[in-house]
């Protein structure tokens, strides 16, 4: 297929995601406001008001109901969407697991935000990573363009018959949701072709069935095993969808991970989300000073790209993972994932916990930690707090 050049727009992250959702043509949306996601759902309701999106908009009384509403709707056939953050995502948790367990294709955006207490409206990843075991595909954006791109791909991945799973599109609260950047949007007709009409329909009056029934121990275990297999299959489907998207847009998609300046790197930096951009700057600066450093970006958090990560770690003298979420008494959440997949390798893996509750992180902070790593001066775990 020829590369389809779209329009170039100036959009804040929330509006870029709303634009992608509009193009995906969902028929049911559930909305409940929470900072920093609110302006996304406001934009979607504006699209409906103007007649640019034909969808049923359900104003619910809580996030729990938001997920319950689109869960029910999705079972009957329509494409659905909602968004939330932080406390909202926590309140939604029970339904998040129901949806994942039921393997309902749907998409939700999470504008990542710290969790109370203390109260914070600013960014970190504690909310997003807390849903790692809910049988959802979880992807995270680096910039506003990426948030637009991932949202479109999320619908395709979610509804692929080999996957049939909800997809969570995470993007950093404020840092991406409220920042205006240059975004290239695809023509509607190209999106129509990229995301074909939804075929999933569980509720069929001619063939009635029960949903949410109790499973005996034997069946439950089989069900979970099937979910595990589907999650593994999702890896190749995600790569396939990304390759297709790259072909259409001409924008490099890389896959589950991206290794930047990795080839001859002795030391590796690992990160996920918006600060990966700042990490690129830090790595480039160190390269200019002759330091052999590289960057591994985690773009897909679930299914965790075990094979890619393990391969990227091999032969490095040292690794530092930057973490925006922490598991108390254990370590940085992303670090734990990386370490689990380094089993048997001798590469030392360090952690820098930073950017919690919106605390800004600068390339020079990243550079400092990375330089200390190359000089053997980095602690096993460092907090920038």
């Amino acid at each position, binding site marked *: 297929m020829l590369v389809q050049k779209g329009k170039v727009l*100036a959009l*804040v992250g929330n509006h870029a995601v709303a634009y992608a959702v509009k193009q995906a043509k969902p028929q049911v949306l559930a909305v409940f406001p929470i900072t920093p996601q609110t302006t996304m759902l406001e934009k979607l309701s504006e699209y409906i008001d103007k007649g640019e999106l034909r969808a049923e908009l359900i104003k619910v009384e809580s996030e729990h109901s938001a997920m319950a509403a689109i869960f029910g709707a999705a079972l009957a056939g329509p494409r659905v969407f909602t968004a939330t953050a932080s406390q909202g995502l926590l309140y939604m948790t029970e339904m998040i697991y129901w949806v994942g367990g039921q393997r309902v294709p749907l998409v939700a955006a999470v504008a990542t935000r710290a969790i109370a207490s203390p109260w914070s409206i600013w960014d970190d990843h504690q909310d997003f990573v807390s849903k790692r075991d809910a049988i959802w595909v979880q992807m995270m954006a680096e*910039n506003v363009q990426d948030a637009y791109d991932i949202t479109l791909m999320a619908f395709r991945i979610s509804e692929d018959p080999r996957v049939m799973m909800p997809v969570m599109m995470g993007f950093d609260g404020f840092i991406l949701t409220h920042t205006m950047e240059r975004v290239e949007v695809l023509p509607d007709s190209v999106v129509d072709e990229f995301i074909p009409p939804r075929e999933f329909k569980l509720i069929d009056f001619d063939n009635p069935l029960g949903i949410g029934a109790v499973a005996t121990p034997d069946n439950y275990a089989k069900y979970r095993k099937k979910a595990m297999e589907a999650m593994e299959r999702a890896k190749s489907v995600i790569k396939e969808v990304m390759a297709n998207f790259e072909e259409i847009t001409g924008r490099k998609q890389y896959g589950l991970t991206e290794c930047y300046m990795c080839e001859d790197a002795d030391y590796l930096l690992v990160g996920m989300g*918006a600060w990966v951009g700042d990490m690129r700057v830090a790595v480039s600066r160190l390269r200019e000073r002759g330091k052999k450093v590289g960057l591994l970006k985690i773009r897909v958090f679930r299914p965790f790209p075990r094979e890619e990560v393990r391969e990227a770690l091999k032969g490095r003298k040292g690794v530092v993972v930057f973490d925006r979420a922490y598991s108390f008494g254990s370590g940085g959440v992303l670090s734990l994932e990386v370490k689990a997949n380094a089993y048997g390798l001798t590469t030392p893996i360090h952690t820098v916990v930073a950017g919690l509750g919106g605390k800004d992180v600068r390339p020079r902070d990243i550079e400092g930690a990375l330089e200390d790593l190359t000089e053997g001066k980095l602690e096993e775990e460092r907090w920038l707090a």
Partner: protein
Amino acid sequence: MIELSIKGRGGQGVVTAGELLVASSISEGFYGQSIPFYGGERRGAPVTSEVRLSKEPIFLHRRVYNPDVVAVFDASLFSVMNPLEGLKENGKVLMNSSNPRKVWRETYVVDATKIAQDIGLVIAGWAVVNTAMVGALANLLKEYVDLDALEEVVKEEFPGKLGEMNAEAVSLGYRGVKKVD
């Protein structure tokens, strides 16, 4: 790449100002980022918006610490904070003021409040100074912002008569900016 810091008070359109500059620059085929800082904002409280403009893709997402340009929407901010904190030695300051006063080696001034009042851009007793300030900034950022493109963006952002009024404020701000010696 150039970095700006826009300082004003809640209700003055500080965030919109940053977005108008970025949208204008992007419409010219460049790159830009408008980064609002949200805290417990309310009308009258100090508000900051930061902007990056570039001819190359921008990777950074950190905040702006050492701006090349600072725009101060309200001179009374000096009594509650230092709006020029971190400004580069060779940076520029643009003040909204009727009283030209040199606050930095390179200081510019525009009477955006008067421009807004003359045009009738007043909401709930507040002069809406952002578009006149954006016009003045365009004059200082010619490499990244084109006046015609900016006026187009403004007319798109504010529909109808309001767009005409704001485009006029942009034009008057652009022409009304003066260097303070």
